[in-house]
């Protein structure tokens, strides 16, 4: 199994390090030819405006969008979730638009509102998952093809899945809990 991590800007090294701990072959992706032969792709957190603009400059966006249509599994965290979304409600940003979720960018406010909280994520088991939310987005709406995986106590949707696409508003790569990545790998391998 070979997983690519989009390495244009943001916390890509953290995802690579988690995948190494899980003993998965990993490749940083900066140019379209590096997408060839991947079994899955992670789009990390970072600044979605920056990543979008760098994706446009070397045609990565079109290639990723085509590969997702052909069934490439993708995990998007934070900015990565924004890029997967069909629509961003409060911004002119143009996502790759492959997943039936509408997201709100910087939904909780500025950095002083960034927070940590324990999350119940039933697909990962009973033990709560450490949620790290940094200038995080949230999911406002989902289509009926989308399965909601996690909510905050007030009902806000913060993780979702649609087929082989997995998105979360928080940062599993900043924690020592490997379960979210393991869940993604089980989607890639077809077990889930």
């Amino acid at each position, binding site marked *: 199994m070979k997983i690519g991590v989009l*390495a*244009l*800007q*943001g*916390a*890509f*090294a*953290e995802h690579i390090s988690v995948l190494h701990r899980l003993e998965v072959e990993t490749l940083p992706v*900066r140019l379209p030819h590096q997408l060839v032969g991947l079994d899955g792709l992670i789009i990390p*957190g*970072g*600044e979605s*405006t*920056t990543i979008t*603009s*760098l994706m446009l*400059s070397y045609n990565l966006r079109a290639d990723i969008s085509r590969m997702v249509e052909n069934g490439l599994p993708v995990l998007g965290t*934070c*900015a990565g979730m924004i890029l997967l979304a069909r629509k961003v409600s409060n*911004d002119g940003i143009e996502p790759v638009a492959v997943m039936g979720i509408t997201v709100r*960018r*910087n939904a909780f*406010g*500025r*950095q*002083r*509102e*960034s*927070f*940590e*909280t324990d999350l119940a994520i039933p697909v990962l088991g009973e033990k709560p998952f450490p949620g*790290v*939310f*940094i*200038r995080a987005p949230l999911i406002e709406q989902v289509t009926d093809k989308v399965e909601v995986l996690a909510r905050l106590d007030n009902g806000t949707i913060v993780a979702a899945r649609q087929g082989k696409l997995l998105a979360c508003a928080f*940062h599993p790569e*900043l924690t020592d809990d490997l379960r979210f990545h393991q869940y993604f790998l089980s989607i890639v391998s077809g077990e889930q």
Partner: protein
Amino acid sequence: METGTWKVKTGLAQMLKGGVIMDVVTPEHAKIAEDAGACAVMALERVPADIRAAGGVARMADPTVIEAIMKAVTIPVMAKCRIGHFVEAQALEALGVDYIDESEVLTPADESHHVWKHDFNVPFVCGCRNLGEALRRIGEGAAMIRTKGEAGTGNIVEAVRHMRTVMDEIRKLVNMPEDELMAEAKELGAPFELVKEVHDTGKLPVVNFAAGGVATPADAALMMQLGADGVFVGSGIFKSSNPKVRAGAIVKATTHYQDPQIIAEVSKNLGEAMPGLDIKQIKPEELLAPRGW
């Protein structure tokens, strides 16, 4: 829900990695920076080259300027306070800036003490010239470090010196036997626990950007190849003849820093870079990097 934790403070810096943070003095500049792909902006009244030219006492920017910039863009906005000026820092936190730079570019308010940054909910970035200085700032609560370089000169030589020094000192610590770490901590003037952590992990406990003298795409890629996690560009963009094009080129060079073909390509037709200053021509008392300790 817990806010202001060490994890969310250092985590925001991790989200900025591989990116370019640009100095801006107006909302229009900020928008140009955001459109060019900046991962954050530093809101200022004057860029360092102008601060250097103006002389006198340089202070925190007028909150009106900072707020206008915060309104203009969706990316994180940083702002500078004077070294040791914890009330300027309190004011910046009240404004809601995303990161505070306790900066040698402004005139220090305290010649002995830096701000005790653990008291704040908003994270801080601080400058350093070597590993000891970096670890002292982290000990005080800095959640991100940048090498100082020499701001406002358009001359990369000091940034290279500081980054090489930090990296050399990390390599030295990693190879050091444990029984020598305490003496080394004393030598560096750094907290022992952090010295031990660098020895064990082989890296700084927080993100480290390069700053102070970046003027071209190749400068940015140079700092990345030397081990920076990202770059600050101060005067280098808005003191050049074509800020928009240069900003975009520096963003691309920072992402593709290992790809000489792309660096060559984006370096074409950028217009005039900012005018540079030879460090040796600057009077010792006008150097910014020695401010702080």
